[in-house]
């Protein structure tokens, strides 16, 4: 591969994927270089194939829905509007319990 060809390669690939002409800097080289032309054709096909992938889906694992919904059990048990007050109350209760335990231990020692 010539130096020009090597320099042109990324630009040829990018222009092919974008469906544009090769950048003017390498246009004259690409118009005479069989390798660059072959690369342009190959990457045009690749771009078409990439775009086609959007509509191709893999089936999600059979247990995905179950995993998601069971992970949400905790979330779902509490109505959304109660979440913040419940979280704050839980934090306060935990702190109070920790304080009581600490005081009891202090007394015991």
């Amino acid at each position, binding site marked *: 591969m010539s130096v020009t060809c090597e320099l042109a390669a*990324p630009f040829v690939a990018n222009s092919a*994927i974008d469906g544009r002409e090769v950048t003017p800097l390498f246009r004259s080289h690409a118009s005479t270089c069989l390798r660059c032309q072959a690369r342009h054709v190959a990457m045009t096909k690749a771009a078409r194939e990439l*775009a086609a992938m959007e509509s191709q889906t893999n089936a999600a694992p059979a247990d995905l829905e179950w995993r998601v919904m069971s992970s949400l059990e905790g979330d779902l048990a509490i109505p959304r509007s109660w979440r913040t007050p419940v979280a704050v109350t839980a934090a306060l209760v935990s702190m109070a319990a920790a304080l009581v335990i600490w005081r009891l231990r202090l007394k015991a020692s």
Partner: protein
Amino acid sequence: MGNQGDSSQVEAGRERELITRAQQGDRAAFAALVRQHQDEVYTLARRLVGDPHLASDVAQEALIRAWRALPKFRGDSRLSTWLYRVTVNTAWTHRERARRHRSASLDEYTQVPAPYGADHPEVAGEILELRGRLRAALDNLPESQRRVVVMKDIYGWSHADIAESMGITVTAAKVRLHRARARLARDLEESA
């Protein structure tokens, strides 16, 4: 044509209703949305992280995040577009774990629809071969490069959207895409 338009409007209306109910905490409505979109979410996750088991974890976490963020969804974009963003962000947080996993092997990509030109065996064979090399080349890209190619060249995101989702400038997103495509081209040539 008119019937198609009507049915898609009915579907969109039904989805909006499910979203509203799910936003109010309706579990069954959210489960229905999960069933509708889980294949798309999983497929995107798989393309972003490669490994099917990790993709399954990413899809699960993305859907859980979606549930938690659903009250903020205002319907400015389609739900699937919004879910794609959530999935991309989730995959990004799994990046480090993804690096420790091996990329999916080619064998795991055999369940794909027939290529266009399937009725012309010689063309179909060539396309299947290209498709296999393309998937291998995509898997071979570094995670950050693969991500821009997947978002731009498969899902058609704008440079600005890619930049925003990755927390980089538009110029940086363009440069990354340019490099990723160059590498993809090189890998494709080498595998030909």
